């Protein structure tokens, strides 16, 4: 059903995405250019979930917003269903794409208008796109509320303030589903929920993926959670992608020193496992995106850094099938430099 298009191209293809913000100095705060996303390329294939992990400030949300064109990126291409959103001049193309790409954000209460009922919140996109008549819209709203596990007769008339965090998030998901999108972008969509609501919503995402053939771009800082839902995972650091690969393999056998550091920081419910260790290099804050390090952006915290890391940005290398890494000294031997794009057609072809 909701495949990208007939040509075998990915549903979403992002190339050389750049987003920067000019900040003015004020009250002792430095001004300059924030290099929030720098030359990022990746793709989301039809029916798959691409997870994105990275520390706070690494640019995950900025990347997502650039993809959604809110605001549009400074440069780069965002191909969605065969249309480059970044350059699409025809309003019709953009409008069509926006319908097919919906987003669910972190704050369950903040993202819903507190004065609206659940029913009108979920109906809103249908009304905005003037889809169907009153009765058809009502049927669709009831259908999607059912789909996310909210009984329309119980919850339809409630307002967000009368819902739990998990229920609010279901409403946000229902709203994202009303227009039958192909791609759902989740930015920390379950991060503020406790473990039981989180598990319920994650299972819901999975059910929708198999039942409706949805694809997801799934951003979260919790690596175990991202693994739970992802086919492939991208690791982001200070505005760049370090490594992109199949979830299982990337977690079992990370190639980038930063990926490994992230994995070592995770607490496990198994007390026999060693306590998470932060390598000394990772202690302290990442450098400011106002003034990112030359060469490899991770070099100021990397235990493997050498002179070349400061001089040259590491090229993206195809390490294993469908697994790319941007590092001069990856943790396992990889093939000599062959030009590739993250998650792109690199080694797979």
């Amino acid at each position: 059903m909701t495949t990208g298009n007939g040509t075998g191209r990915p549903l979403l293809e992002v190339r050389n995405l750049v987003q920067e913000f000019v900040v003015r100095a004020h009250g002792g705060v430095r001004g300059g250019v924030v290099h929030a996303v720098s030359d990022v390329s990746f793709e989301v294939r039809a029916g798959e979930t691409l997870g994105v992990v990275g520390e706070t400030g690494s640019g995950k949300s900025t990347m997502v917003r650039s993809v959604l064109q809110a605001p549009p990126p400074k440069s780069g291409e965002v191909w969605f269903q065969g249309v480059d959103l970044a350059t699409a001049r025809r309003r019709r193309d953009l409008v069509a794409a926006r319908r097919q790409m919906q987003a669910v954000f972190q704050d369950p209460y903040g993202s819903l208008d507190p004065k609206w009922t659940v029913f009108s919140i979920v109906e809103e996109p249908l009304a905005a796109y003037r889809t169907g008549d009153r009765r058809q819209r009502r049927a669709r709203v009831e259908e999607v509320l059912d789909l996310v596990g909210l009984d329309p007769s119980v919850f339809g008339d409630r307002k967000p303030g009368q819902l739990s965090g998990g229920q609010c998030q279901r409403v946000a998901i229902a709203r994202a589903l009303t227009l039958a999108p192909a791609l759902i972008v989740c930015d920390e969509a379950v991060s503020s929920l406790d473990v039981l609501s989180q598990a319920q919503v994650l299972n819901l995402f999975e059910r929708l993926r198999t039942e409706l053939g949805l694809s997801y771009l799934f951003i979260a800082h919790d690596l175990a959670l991202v693994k739970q839902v992802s086919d492939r995972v991208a690791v982001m650091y200070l505005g760049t992608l370090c490594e992109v690969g199949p979830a299982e393999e990337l977690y079992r056998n990370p190639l980038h020193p930063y990926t490994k550091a992230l994995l070592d920081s995770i607490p496990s419910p198994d007390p026999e496992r060693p306590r998470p260790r932060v390598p000394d290099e990772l202690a302290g804050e990442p450098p400011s995106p106002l003034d990112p390090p030359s060469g490899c952006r991770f070099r100021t915290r990397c235990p493997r850094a050498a002179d070349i890391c400061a001089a040259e940005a590491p090229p993206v290398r195809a390490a294993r099938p469908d697994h790319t890494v941007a590092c001069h000294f990856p943790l396992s031997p990889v093939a000599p430099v062959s030009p590739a794009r993250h998650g792109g057609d690199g080694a797979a072809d």
Partner: protein
Amino acid sequence: MTTQIQPDAAARTGDPDAPLLTIENLEVTFRTRDAPVHAVRGVDLTVYAGQTLAVIGESGSGKTVTSRAVMGLLPRTASVRGSIRLGDRQMVGLGEKELRKCLGREVGMIFQDPARSLNPTMRIGSQLTEAIRVHLPLDRRQARERAVELLAMVRLPAPARRFHEYPHQLSGGMRQRVMIAIALACQPRLLIADEATTALDVTTQAQIMDLLLDLQQRFAMGLVLISHDMGLAASYADQVAVMYAGRVVERAPTREMIAHVRMPYTRALLDATPRLERPPHAPLPVISGRPPDLRALDPGCAFAPRCSRVRERCRQERPELAEHQPRHEWACFFPCADDTIPGEDER
């Protein structure tokens, strides 16, 4: 660097084996416009010097209300019954001023949202200096020195410079470090961290936890970690108490707890936690439903409506927390089988 901060906390305790904090049969009820909310319904907890106790439970289970009761930070609509003893001093019933005086030096608390607990219009340094001078008889210069020292102790990068910055100029992790510095200003014997790392990413969380445990060892502090994350509890706590609907439903030393979970609710929390060991797309085993309405509780086990092991007795009678095995307490009539004991299953 930390010469002035003496690990005198242990000395102050007197008997090292005496508990720092003893909560007995704590009940907290909020008056609301309709029926009263029974947020905490008979909680017992004990914290020793140098010990880390994790309090786990889903949102609304009463973790925050319990810790706010210890801090005397509940709104006026709350009525508190039972006993909260700090050392051998009874806190329940003390007047606000007396309470502040005892608590100030003894207990520090770190809240979930560092952005909201810092004053956005005040420089970091002034907030910290103020906190220090409330509790310690230092002049402004001494307090300043102490403040910079505390910022260095919580490993804030470039502490002397940060001193003059405002909260919005710091990242979430840095703000949380400042909150810890403020909580430590008075060298408390007990530190309560309420979801202190929930909003932080994993590397920052690991750093903050390292820091907390290190400080705890150095000053022989008691540490209460409040969280809904079993992984965090298993990695850092000596003992785990699980709360449901305002009561402690299972409690044991961490290893014992994770290896031999008996209470079906604890089992549900553990099962629903995403783990790196699981393959992608494997459905998470999760119970449905929500915690009960705390205004109108049925007489039986509060978990009964969601429990897979429920039987008639559970709806009639309330299971009490009891030590069924050495140092392992649970409140359940039909606990999960301990799969390490062959053939044991009450069902």
